[in-house]
């Protein structure tokens, strides 16, 4: 390697320092690349697949898993669950996100319905806020579904 190539190398390093100090490039480097080193240590301690699902999907996943496990223990597995609209549950639990029916089915195999679905009156259970928490409540017939929908509407 001749001295001219060393000069090119030094100039390249200098230009790279300037490049990574441009605000938008610096932000990209810090938020996408350097943060990786910090996250890697924690991530390596959570190599279990379920942990990784929870880390990625957060409350959207854990909520459905909790509902699904309760239903499997206490109800028939083939139950259609009426889930509340976003305004209803975010008012009571701001960080919560309940997934749309396809994603809920993908997460847990549970079939869900919402107030906008055609099969809403086929729901055999619902999620409703009682006391200071969300509960699962079985539904016997269409009239009970209507009552729950009204409760969601009252918000």
């Amino acid at each position, binding site marked *: *390697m*001749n001295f*001219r*190539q*060393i000069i*090119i*190398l030094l100039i*390249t*390093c200098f*230009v*790279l320092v300037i*490049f990574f100090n*441009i605000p*938008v*490039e610096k932000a*990209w*480097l810090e938020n*996408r*690349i350097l943060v*990786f080193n910090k996250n*890697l240590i924690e*991530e390596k301690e959570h190599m279990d*697949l379920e942990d*990784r*699902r929870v*880390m*990625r*999907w957060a409350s959207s996943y854990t909520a459905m898993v909790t509902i699904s496990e309760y239903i499997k223990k206490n109800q028939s597995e083939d139950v259609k669950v009426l889930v509340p609209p976003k305004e209803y549950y975010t008012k009571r639990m701001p960080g919560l996100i309940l*997934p*749309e*029916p*396809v*994603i809920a*089915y*993908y997460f847990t195999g549970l*079939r*869900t*319905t*919402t107030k*906008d*679905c*055609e*099969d809403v009156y086929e729901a055999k259970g619902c999620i409703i806020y009682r006391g200071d928490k969300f509960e699962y409540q079985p539904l016997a017939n269409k009239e009970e579904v209507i009552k729950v929908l009204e409760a969601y509407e009252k918000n």
Partner: protein
Amino acid sequence: MNFWGLLFLIITQFIAGRGILALLKIKLNPVQTFAVSMLSGVLTFSLIPMIIQLFYVPITKTNVFISLCVTSAVLGLVPIKNYDFKALKPGNIKFSMPYLYELLFMGLLVALIIPSAWRCFYFPVNARDVLSGPEALAEYAIKEHSISNSVFSVNLLESVPNLLKPPFVTDLQIIYKLFVHPFGSTWLIIVVISFLTFLYSILRERVHPVLTGFLMLFFMSIPEVYGYTYIVLWDYSNMIFFFLGIYFIYRYYDTKQFNIFLFCCLMFGFSTFIRLETIVFIGLIVPLMAFIMWKEKKTIPQIILNAALITGIPFMFYVVWVEIFVKYYLPLDLHVGTQIDFTPLTSYSEWIGRINAELVFGGLNIGLYGIFIYTFLAVLLIDAIFFRTFNKQAKFMLYCIGIIYFGLPILAYITPWFNITTAKRGLFKMFPSMILYMANSAMVMRLSQAIKKFEFPEVTQKNKVPKPATVHTVSTTGKKKKKKK
């Protein structure tokens, strides 16, 4: 993670892709051969679960395994006479150690891709469009041995578009979930690394390694594009294959080899298989193609044949998915005709305005694309004002950039699902062409030559053609004559 499964897939994908290159007698340098083989192999494999289902064969691990092996074997062995095995002899393998500044960039680029590779492996798929479509379909396809599965019996609400997209992601998720890892996903980093390797190699052919490194850094540091190197969606792969189509159609004009044209049609076909609306942009390439052929005094039938192939081959991918698979194999009633709307809510000019205001020159542009677009425009302006010269490939790339920029709003007339997010991702298709333009730009090429001249002045001196020496001879008239040697 099943390492042996991953190795199996990498090897068989390479064999399948290498076979396609050999079948069409595509000659590239070893690095490009490897990269394009991997890319072609991954896309070929992405067709397999769908093809299995077309023949009503259950999607099981055994059936998929056999199909992958047969595909690789057939594609790998059929063109066996076209392989240049002599190139593998030790004496013929030439390797030169990169210079230190090139190693610096290689190390930097590898360091930038490591977080993407880890995230592809570590995290499950997260994008809502994929979770509510291909990922759910893939998961239940493995359980129920069919892409047409119980996911379609759930309340679909707004998931329908995602469930009806071509099964590029679905099929690769099926394969990688079966053989590698329950989260699938690792195919994405294979595609990304192969593409970046190819891009590096073609830039390296044009400009000094230092400038190649900077161009690669510019490309990789586009914030939104970088995010898609580990978020499983369609757009990064769509960008890659559309660019490969553009690159090889340019090579066809350069070399006039029809086999390269066929390969370009295949790349466009793959690109259409990933996102169906790509066929609109392929259609917009036809006028340029026709013009170049007309200038080269090709006959009208030849022009029509090429136009038919470049649109027909991608269209076949569209037909197989929409008119055959969706219609006869999926439990949904969808007719493409009802999607075309010649009076969308937002007009063409309004969409151009929105794209400029929200994506290119304002709104979220810096957060999405960083300084990339501005850098490209600066290089373009300098070329236009100071150098006023554009080589053939530069002009070609500018046309292709224009196709995307002016072609995107046309999608609003084709599909009701076109929105600003679609446009945001659709603009990705411009970026590799922008990089290749910059590598061909007069400014960058002059800079490249200047760096080479500085680095190797003695080589530059030797390459200069010497001035002819002047010799004096005496004529018969006694007058001296000057004679040039």
